[in-house]
């Protein structure tokens, strides 16, 4: 535990946008160079601050998508049509421009290879972002160590509306192809491509029973997505015998959410 009042201030920093990657129609990744960045752990987030010409400021939290081992910090932003911040970040901001942010923030929803496994990741929509940081970290940290991969196997269950809404779709496929200890499962809840043989419903207990490590394996579980998905998944996992203390959740949605 940290002492009361002993922590240094998490300062605002100026980040340079060095690249912008369109991930899906609704999501894009900002690749940032952040002078003085202290490093982060997979699963943490940053606060981004925008200042209008009249001085009005708006802040939002965004999960970090990049692994700690990568040279640049990346954030993947999903556009919310009535958002104050995300339309600017996902439509207007260009490479060469600057952004104010502070972090890393959050010491709870984090995983690294020292934490151990097996690992069960469950994502809904852009809830994949902090989980992707964990997958990228695991990939880099264990790139040459096959035995360690077998000690830390991963299963991902990722719910999207349509195949074209799947963020990091190609990268996930590449990772799973070259790593037999990573299993990627998609469910497409609204529309499926021709010939789709995967899941096509919201995540439920039967799907978790089919995909998740059994509770007896004591997997570390991370669930991130909209509140309704996280509630359903976490409650079902506890019903399947997983220890609540091993099930870490991050719920999010548009600002102005519920009590």
């Amino acid at each position: 535990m940290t002492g009361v009042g002993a922590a240094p201030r998490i300062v605002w920093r100026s980040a340079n946008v060095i690249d912008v990657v369109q991930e899906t129609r609704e999501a894009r990744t900002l690749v940032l160079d952040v002078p003085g960045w202290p490093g982060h752990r997979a699963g943490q987030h940053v606060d981004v601050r925008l200042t209008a010409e009249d001085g009005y400021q708006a802040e939002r939290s965004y999960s970090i998508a990049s692994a700690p081992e990568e040279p640049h910090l990346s954030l993947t932003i999903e556009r919310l049509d009535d958002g104050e911040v995300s339309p600017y970040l996902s439509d207007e901001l260009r490479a060469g421009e600057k952004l104010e942010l502070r972090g890393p923030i959050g010491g709870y929803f984090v995983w690294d290879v020292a934490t151990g496994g097996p690992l069960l990741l469950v994502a809904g929509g852009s809830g994949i972002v902090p989980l992707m940081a964990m997958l990228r970290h695991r990939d880099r940290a264990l790139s040459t160590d096959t035995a360690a991969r077998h000690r830390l196997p991963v299963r991902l269950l990722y719910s999207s509306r349509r195949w074209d809404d799947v963020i990091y779709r190609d990268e996930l496929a590449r990772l799973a192809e070259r790593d037999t200890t990573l299993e990627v499962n998609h469910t497409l809840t609204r529309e499926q491509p021709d010939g789709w043989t995967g899941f096509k419903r919201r995540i439920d207990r039967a799907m978790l029973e089919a995909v998740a490590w059994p509770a007896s394996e004591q997997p570390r579980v991370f669930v991130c997505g909209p509140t309704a998905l996280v509630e359903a998944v976490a409650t079902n996992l506890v019903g399947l015998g997983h220890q609540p203390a091993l099930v870490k959740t991050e719920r999010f949605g548009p600002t102005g959410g519920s009590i």
Partner: protein
Amino acid sequence: MLSAGPTPRSPLASWDFTLRGADGRNAHWTWDEFTALPRQTTTKDIHCVTKWSKFDTVWEGISIDTLLSEAAAKGVASSPYVLARCDGGYTTNLPLADVMGGKAWIAFMYDGKPLPPEHGGPARLLVPHLYFWKSAKWVRELRFMESDSPGFWESLGYHNYGDPWREQRYAGDE
């Protein structure tokens, strides 16, 4: 954003609430005893650390002042700080002065209806003048402490006090 794990679900038959002194003496209520205490209804604005506010929310519950005087009558001595302890292992720390004087409640009704588990039911702490993570969901105990000690989010980088008007979000924010 600030719920850390699965939503705990406590049956009312086994729910209880404890106000525990630093010396271990305590006052204790079952659900029926607790909800039979004098109730208050309060309308407040609430402020989440993830940057939203919600105005004119209506809550019903027991004022902490009521619990303190009931406990004092049972010989429970107060201390300058309290730690709220909850189902699911969550804790949060507060100065006693911030939960006295009509500033805090244990709420079990929201908008005229029983508080659902995903919003902290059966009962949650309600401290509207601080950031809402201080209004701990699923609260079961207030424990007096002689000295301040960080709770769950406070030990993970959130601000120790959490005044929304000073935007005290993270440790180190002044």
